[in-house]
């Protein structure tokens, strides 16, 4: 009991300075936000005021009364500068605003224990493939995204209410240091060079002044965690996406994954059709012809007929072998028989790598999830064999928190990216896409020099 109490106290004591440092961090973000706000709102205001002036001039004096050399010329110049900034500065500034909003969301979760969901619309593809987005496309995307407006409102709220909150601990500590502690130290002969006026309590001894300063600092530090929590709460109120936005994004995600799933399904069917047509079907036709020839020869040349029959038998064996391979590619038999855990073990046995499989599952996921997971593992192991430069890999399977988690790890050269790159990026992207149909995600950690770990997480219920 006593020890846990001590630990608690220690944690509180340590929590103060950490929270204080984090408050300073948030203040930094706040200042950056104010600067960005100037860049976003400034050009718009500048252009609006300048052209407003020109309009006023025009209404008051008519075209003849305006002179480019005088006030109107200056307004025109300012207006053009404003428009110029709107064109070239505002999109980047808006991206910055979104980045700050995202940073606040993340840090609020990591530093204050108040996670805030994010709901940004993904950057759309350009109308011309491979080109950057045009100004219009970019602005459309940014301004139609509710999250951008949340972020802008947050910057404004943050600049007023957030600042007031953050300043509480900062001011307390600042006053304690500047007004009490430093003068106290100076008067006992330390810190000569600081030109700070003596403390405002004449007659008190230096140590009392020092202690008062310490009290201020302690109060400021102690208040920091509370202030931080309040600050994160404020951020949550402003930044959390509305239910509608969340639903809109969900619908967008579902529509996209559905389209991709249908495309993959159709492509797969075409491949199977082609394989059957070129393989087993062709062999069966050839077999029929051979058998027919054997039938014609059986009376006149029994030896030749026998040879043809043997040929037909071998052709049937080859057709079977091809069908077997095809079935393996569609739905591997072990997967159907035993489920994903044993199917991964079978994969490990067939892989050219030395694969260690660990973990187990308390039940079986739904068949489509198993199939997606199986082919993902199969492709990941093939990637390891092709790109990692090592001959060993580890696969770990488990089920926790309502999701099937499979990790494929190797000690190879690393440098694999989901987004693309030298080492099988498109492959990883393809896996990611197929898992997305099940709301699955793929996390790749692969620093240059390795090791590489790819974890897939598929939410599902076991049966």
């Amino acid at each position: 009991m006593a020890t846990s109490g001590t630990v608690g106290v220690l944690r509180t004591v340590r929590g103060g300075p950490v929270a204080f440092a984090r408050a300073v961090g948030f203040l930094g973000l706040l200042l950056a936000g104010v600067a960005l706000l100037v860049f976003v709102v400034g050009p718009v205001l500048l252009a609006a005021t300048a052209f407003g002036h020109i309009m006023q001039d025009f209404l008051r004096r008519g075209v003849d009364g305006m002179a480019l050399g005088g006030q109107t010329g200056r307004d025109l110049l300012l207006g053009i500068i404003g428009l110029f900034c709107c064109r070239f500065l505002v999109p980047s500034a808006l991206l910055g605003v979104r980045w700050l909003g995202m940073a606040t969301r993340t840090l609020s979760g990591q530093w204050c224990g108040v996670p805030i969901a994010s709901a940004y619309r993904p950057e759309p593809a350009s109308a011309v493939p491979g080109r950057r987005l045009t100004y219009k496309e970019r602005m459309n995307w940014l301004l139609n995204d509710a999250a951008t407006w949340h972020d802008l409102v947050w910057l404004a709220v943050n600049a007023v209410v957030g600042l007031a909150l953050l300043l509480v601990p900062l001011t307390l500590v600042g006053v304690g240091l500047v007004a009490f502690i430093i003068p106290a130290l100076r008067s006992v002969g330390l810190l000569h060079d600081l030109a700070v006026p003596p403390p405002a309590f004449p007659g008190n001894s230096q140590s009392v002044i020092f202690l008062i300063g310490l009290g201020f600092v302690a109060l400021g530090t102690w208040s920091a965690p509370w202030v931080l929590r309040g600050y994160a709460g404020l951020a949550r109120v402003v930044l959390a996406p509305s239910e509608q936005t969340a639903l809109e994004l969900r619908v967008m995600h579902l529509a996209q994954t559905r389209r991709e799933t249908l495309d993959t399904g159709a492509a797969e069917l075409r491949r199977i059709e082609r394989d059957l047509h070129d393989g087993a079907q062709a062999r069966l036709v050839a077999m029929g012809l051979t058998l027919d020839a054997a039938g014609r020869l059986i009376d006149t040349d029994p030896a030749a007929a026998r040879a043809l029959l043997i040929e037909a038998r071998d052709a049937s064996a080859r057709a079977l072998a091809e069908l077997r391979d095809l079935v393996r590619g569609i739905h591997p038999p072990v997967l159907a028989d035993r489920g994903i855990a044993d199917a991964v073990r079978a994969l490990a046995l067939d892989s050219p790598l030395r694969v260690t499989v660990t973990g187990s599952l308390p039940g079986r996921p739904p068949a489509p999830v198993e199939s997606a997971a199986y082919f993902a593992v199969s492709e990941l192991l093939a990637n390891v064999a092709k790109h990692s430069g090592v001959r060993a890999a580890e696969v770990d399977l488990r089920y926790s928190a309502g999701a099937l988690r499979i990790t494929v790890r190797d000690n190879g050269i690393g440098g694999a990216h989901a987004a693309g790159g030298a080492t099988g990026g498109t492959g990883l992207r393809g896996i990611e896409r197929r898992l997305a149909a099940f709301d699955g995600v793929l996390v790749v950690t692969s620093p240059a020099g390795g090791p590489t770990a790819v974890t897939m997480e598929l939410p599902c219920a076991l049966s």
Partner: protein
Amino acid sequence: MRVVIAEDLFLLRDGLIRLLEAYGFEVAAAVDNGSDFLAAVRAQPPEVAVVDVRLPPTFTDEGLRAALTARTEFPGLPILVLSQYVEQLYARELLADGAGAVGYLLKDRVFDGAQFTDAVKRVADGGTAMDPEVIARLLARGDTGEGPLARLSPREREVLELMAEGRSNVAIAQRLYVTERAVAKHTAAIFTKLDLQPSDDDNRRVLAVLAYLGR
């Protein structure tokens, strides 16, 4: 020789019965599911059983599981498992008890009646009959260059491969165009390199195959 057959496809079951009877086997029972198979084995253990991996009612690995159950109830009961496809995982499970008398073949092998009945006899006699495809897929993994198998010479590996398929020294000699004595020399070298104690030859052959498949 008394055989029990478990195969759910009527045509194949019928074909197997006719084939085995044509080669002088006595088909004691031919059933179409796992529980009937176990009942038939329990009623009177046959000299060898031929079982399809995929059987009703689950149409998964029902047959394999029935075969493994029968093996635990009757240790060393010779069983030849037939399947539309072969899996190393299943081969290992069949071989795991180390008692031998196990076969695992693709259904296509039935096409060659003489070879197939040969394999059935080998299994009945306590040997193994692994499908060449199991071996081929093992070899496709390439050489990892570790373990006692790395000590074998290429020729010894070849002999071991054929041994794993379940071939006798005579058959191996024919396949490799060498004398039977040369094969005997190779097998002796294999046993030594795999640290297999001298015991009866059949048992050592099974153990060598296990070492090969079990790496």
